[in-house]
């Protein structure tokens, strides 16, 4: 087997692994049940909550990630290395541990004060968003930084020699040049947030019609040995996630060729 064929075989192996898992769901697939589950109030609420929380947490992550990534990509400053290392925290600590860390934080005086000031995180929707933000922010910074690293700083230097301020150079040169990378970061961050489970259930719990996101709902159905309902919810999550990813990829590909 040539090296090329071996590499392609590996790529197909990964594809068939995931495709096999999705196909395996069909063994328990019941057409009526999927539609019934989909249109139930509880599922619709979970879908709305998942989409809302993932979108808000992604927006916050990217808003924080863009300037942070720019600083890490372009400037040398004290503490840069430790910040860079800390970004890996969501990857090296399990989501459940991250959720537990949040719960412990809100049991501290500062956390209690925040909660008492009117911002409820524990067992609330804010907690869902916070859990997703905490698990995705580091990844978002890492992804946006990778996109900015690809853009030579020389463009900004030339722009500044032509009269642009640092902010103008960033907005008119760097951002348009790395927009595809940033878009990819948004997609992956959103997908990661949509599927977030460990941190969410730890800090926000699993209250139906309150903090039950789709992944939490899947877990709850599985806990109740409702395999058919679990299958239906997984298929809905897969369809939403893959559909959104595919749509954004299509848009970005069209922009690239434009």
């Amino acid at each position, binding site marked *: 087997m040539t090296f090329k064929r071996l590499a392609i075989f590996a790529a197909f192996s990964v594809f068939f692994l995931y495709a096999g898992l999705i196909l395996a769901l069909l063994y328990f697939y019941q057409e009526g049940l999927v539609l019934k589950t989909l249109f139930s109030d509880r599922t619709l609420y979970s879908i709305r909550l998942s989409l809302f929380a993932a979108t808000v947490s992604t927006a916050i992550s990217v808003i924080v990630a863009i300037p942070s990534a720019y600083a890490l990509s372009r400037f040398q400053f004290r503490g840069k290395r430790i910040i860079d290392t800390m970004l890996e925290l969501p990857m090296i600590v399990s989501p459940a541990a991250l959720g537990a860390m949040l719960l412990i934080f809100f049991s501290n005086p500062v956390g209690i004060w925040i909660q008492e000031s009117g911002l409820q995180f524990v067992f609330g929707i804010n907690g869902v968003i916070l859990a997703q933000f905490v698990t995705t922010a580091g990844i978002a910074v890492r992804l946006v930084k990778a996109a900015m690293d690809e853009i030579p700083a020389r463009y900004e230097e*030339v722009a500044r*020699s*032509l009269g*642009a*301020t640092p902010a103008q150079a960033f907005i*008119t040169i760097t951002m348009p040049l790395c927009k595809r990378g940033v878009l990819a970061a948004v997609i992956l961050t959103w997908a990661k947030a949509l599927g977030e489970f460990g941190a969410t259930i730890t800090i926000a719990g699993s209250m139906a019609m309150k903090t039950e996101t789709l992944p939490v709902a899947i877990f709850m159905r599985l806990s109740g040995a409702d395999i058919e309902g679990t299958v239906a919810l997984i298929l809905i999550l897969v369809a939403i996630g893959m559909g959104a990813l595919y749509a954004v990829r299509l848009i970005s590909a069209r922009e690239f060729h434009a």
Partner: protein
Amino acid sequence: MLELRELIVRAGGFTLSDISLALPERQCHVFLGPTGSGKTLLLETIVGFRRPEAGSVVLDGLDITHMPIESRGISYVPQDLALFPHMTVEGNILYGLKMSNNARHRQLVDDIVGIMGIGHLLGRSVKNLSGGEKQRVALVRALATGCKRLVLDEPLSSLHEAMKTDLWFMIRDLMERYALTVYLITHDLEEAFFLGDTVSILMDGKLLQTGNNEEVRLNPQTISAARFLGFRNLFSCKVSGITENTFNVACPGLNSSISISRRINMEQSHENGQSAIIGIHPQNIQFKQGATHCNPDDNILHGIVSKIFGKGDAHILHFMPDGGAVPVEIEIPDHQLRSLGLAQNKRTTISLRPEYLHLMRNSGNGTV
């Protein structure tokens, strides 16, 4: 007037040390030197991309060392041109105007676009331009801001000879029309001496020599500068006599006593018995084959042609003087080689004319 006062700039392990220069307006100042000599670092400090560790950059009496890049009024064209790939040619050219909200220069832009002959490219993406077109667009973009000072960091290095020469003329033309001051980096000697009113030679982070075009071209002050300027023949010698018009030196490598004009070596002072280096460019050596009368001051050397190398329409010959230890490198055009009937191992005579010889102090151990 741009003044660099005792500049020290560090980048990684490299240091640009103690650079002091005063560069008048409306001239082309060339910074010449091999790769890694610190040319780009110096110009980046002038433009404001780098902060010096010590010293200052003063423009028209104003200390701009810590002034933001966009406030300096110095446009920059890097080696890779850095045309903004997400914009059209027009977008690139008008970028500076948009940033400064300065519509006054719109007419200037139209004029420059016309002079540079890129009007037909305005709607095109910069990704689809040829090398020469990209250079023109980069130059127009730098000038479109109405800026009178341009920093050019080897922008022509990737072009072929004919296109490069076209752009030399264009740069000269633009300088005259718009009273520009240009700071140019190059390692190309032809480009340096075509465009440069003044030339500074940088090597290993140090400023070896600076002066007007002819001064630097004809009278290198150090062995390193001479080597870089193409003085391939460098021979150790000892000053044996000084008259009103000449230095006489004994040159064991050539097995000969050589007289050197003092007129073109006025910058240098030498003393009897002092160790020195003679430098002569391979193109400035004459053959005296068949000459019946030779002036003794012409530094006549007899010997044989030891090697001949082809170099396109020219040839490089190695001439070994009788009793000498080192060959003299001579470059002559193809037609002259044929008319003189020169061939390997053929005996011949050469003249090292005093006005082409440069005498430099030997600050080293006496060897070249």
